[in-house]
């Protein structure tokens, strides 16, 4: 159990350090694409992806760095992508909002809110038709659950009994809008209206708990071919897009932030942080170097890979 805890901690910390590195580089303008950081939300990606096989499929939103990494995406290719280099996972055409890695079945991340939810359901439909014994996962924000296609996706997945897990990262915010102003339902309760099983995890900082709950769910979904909704309360430390802090702006309270930090193992467990930081930073530096030294795409790339 300690080994497991350390593994998950390491995963989470690695994500945080990668994103802190991005924040550090960003002002230099070497990364010329909008970044949506998951700092504060890393435990979800770590706890969820730990239970997935490489053959399982994951789809996310633009807030995708964490899942790209947790699913096993290559770090060099990630930094190269952010730098707009041809060695990037998307050959420099994707940028931060569209990370994907076919090798590890990290299937795509989209800048159109909620648009990948139905893609994950389709993935599960194919698994079922082709007997693939895969689990497909859709990761999305609380705001995304307001889109009509969320309802359509739940209904379809339930009606066709598809092995798909809907993960709602509920950080209570859509850009600057509070959940209460937009939402007349509770995600995990609402799912039951479709006969879809659901669970709510309040401790979005607790990768160990998330991992443990997910273990059972992934097993159930895989074995029984059913959809499942997982809602996890979490907290976004940074502004919606970009690298700044914005707790000075009255749309949210600094208190809330302080409370989350109190519970955040990546802040509280200084010993483990110290234990892993160097190793991770070495990996990151190498990836940054790889990105820096990689070439930009040739002109011909502009019109390649369209059809």
């Amino acid at each position: 159990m300690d080994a497991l805890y350390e593994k998950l901690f390491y995963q989470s910390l690695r994500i945080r350090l990668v994103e802190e590195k991005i924040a550090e580089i960003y002002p230099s303008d070497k990364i010329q694409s909008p970044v949506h950081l998951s700092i504060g939300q890393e435990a979800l990606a770590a706890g969820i992806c730990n239970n997935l096989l490489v053959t399982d499929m994951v789809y996310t939103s633009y807030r995708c760095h964490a899942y790209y990494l947790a699913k096993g995406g290559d770090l060099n290719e990630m930094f190269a992508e952010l730098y707009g280099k041809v060695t990037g996972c998307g050959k420099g055409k994707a940028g931060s909002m569209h990370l994907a890695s076919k090798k590890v079945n990290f299937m795509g991340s989209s800048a159109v809110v909620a648009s990948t939810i139905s893609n994950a359901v389709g993935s599960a439909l194919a698994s079922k038709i082709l007997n693939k014994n895969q689990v497909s996962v859709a990761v999305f924000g609380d705001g995304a659950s307001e889109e009509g296609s969320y309802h359509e996706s739940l209904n379809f997945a339930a009606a066709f009994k598809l092995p798909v897990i809907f993960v709602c990262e509920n950080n209570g915010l859509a850009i600057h809008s509070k959940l209460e102003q937009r939402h007349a339902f509770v995600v995990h309760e609402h799912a039951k209206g479709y006969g879809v099983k659901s669970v709510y995890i309040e401790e979005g900082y607790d990768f160990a708990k998330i991992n443990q709950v997910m273990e059972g769910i992934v097993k159930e979904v895989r074995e029984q071919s059913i959809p499942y909704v997982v809602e996890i309360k979490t907290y976004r430390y940074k502004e919606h897009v970009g690298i700044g802090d914005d707790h000075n702006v009255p749309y949210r309270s600094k208190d809330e932030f302080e409370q989350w930090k109190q519970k955040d193992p990546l802040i509280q467990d200084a010993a483990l942080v110290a234990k892993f930081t160097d190793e991770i930073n070495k990996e990151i530096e190498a990836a940054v170097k790889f990105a820096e030294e990689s070439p930009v795409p040739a002109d011909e790339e502009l019109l390649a890979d369209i059809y």
Partner: protein
Amino acid sequence: MEHNEKVIKYKDALLTSMDDALTRFPGTIIMGQGVDDHKGTFGSTTDLAKKHGAHRVFDIPLSEEGNTGIGIGAALNGVYPIQTHIRNDFSLLAMSQIVNTAAKYKYMYGGHFNVPMLIRMIIGRSWGQGAQHSQSLQSLFAHIPGLVVLMPSSADAVLESYNHAVEHYKGPVISIEHRLLYDYSFKSTYGEKDAAKHDPFSSRLVRKGDDVTIVATSIMVIEAQRVADYLAKELDIHCEIIDLHSISHFNKEMIVESVKKTGNLIIADTSWQAYGVCAEISRIICEHDPRMLKGPVVTLGMQPSPCPTTKKLEDLFYPDDYTFTMKIVEMVKGRGHGLSVAKTSLNETYKSFKGPF
């Protein structure tokens, strides 16, 4: 029996291509509203669920955006989905998945993913169905890089291009089928060894002539042929007809060469002229060399209004082949030509169509 005596209905070509796809590729599925019911999408999917299994040909909820996203996700995981919209108007609900997702998937992620799928959308005419069941939205899709947009005008065009889509092409294809073509019979040479070879996703030169170039789409190709027959027989005017077939990947050279020869161009499309096929073909000519033309280009399409239901106005809303014919005569012979043109019209075909559907 001579091979060119084989005759096949458009809807049977559709049914054959659907059946072939299911038979030859185990990953093919057909998902659409009513694809497994007794009407079988106007006969184009009849009994396929029985033959290939209800897990491969199935009805879906009324959820266009979600369904399209589901099709895309399935395509990304090894299935070839064929989706249907019994009116293309409903595909407006799926625009984000088609335009923001399907069209961009390959490019946006650096060429590592493919979204092979076929979305069939039906357009029509003369159903008295009014503003929301009458649109012909091909140009909305053809504006978007990443989509192949077809408008097959014959049984062979269906067979060639659908089989190519399923067998060889790895991206999303939008095909716009005209409901009134469904019951037309066409000569077919598809699959025969001396059959004409076309680039399945490009244009077809369907008639040669020196006087006027007609660039047409979908059922307007049929109208063009009727008009051209009449003009050749009665007035010694000879039309060259280009069936655009793919409105996203048409054959520019074919059009330019023809206009160079005839100096006269008429474009006949099923939709509104503004920002449509009529505009796009005009652009091709303008960018190449507008001075090839002897005079103004004539365009035929729907009048710039929503479609009214009452027959009286509906008949004015759509172009008829009398107008089509007259425009060409004027173009070739000048305004005061004094020739008389019979009023026989393809409109009879349209009028005799009733529905329901």
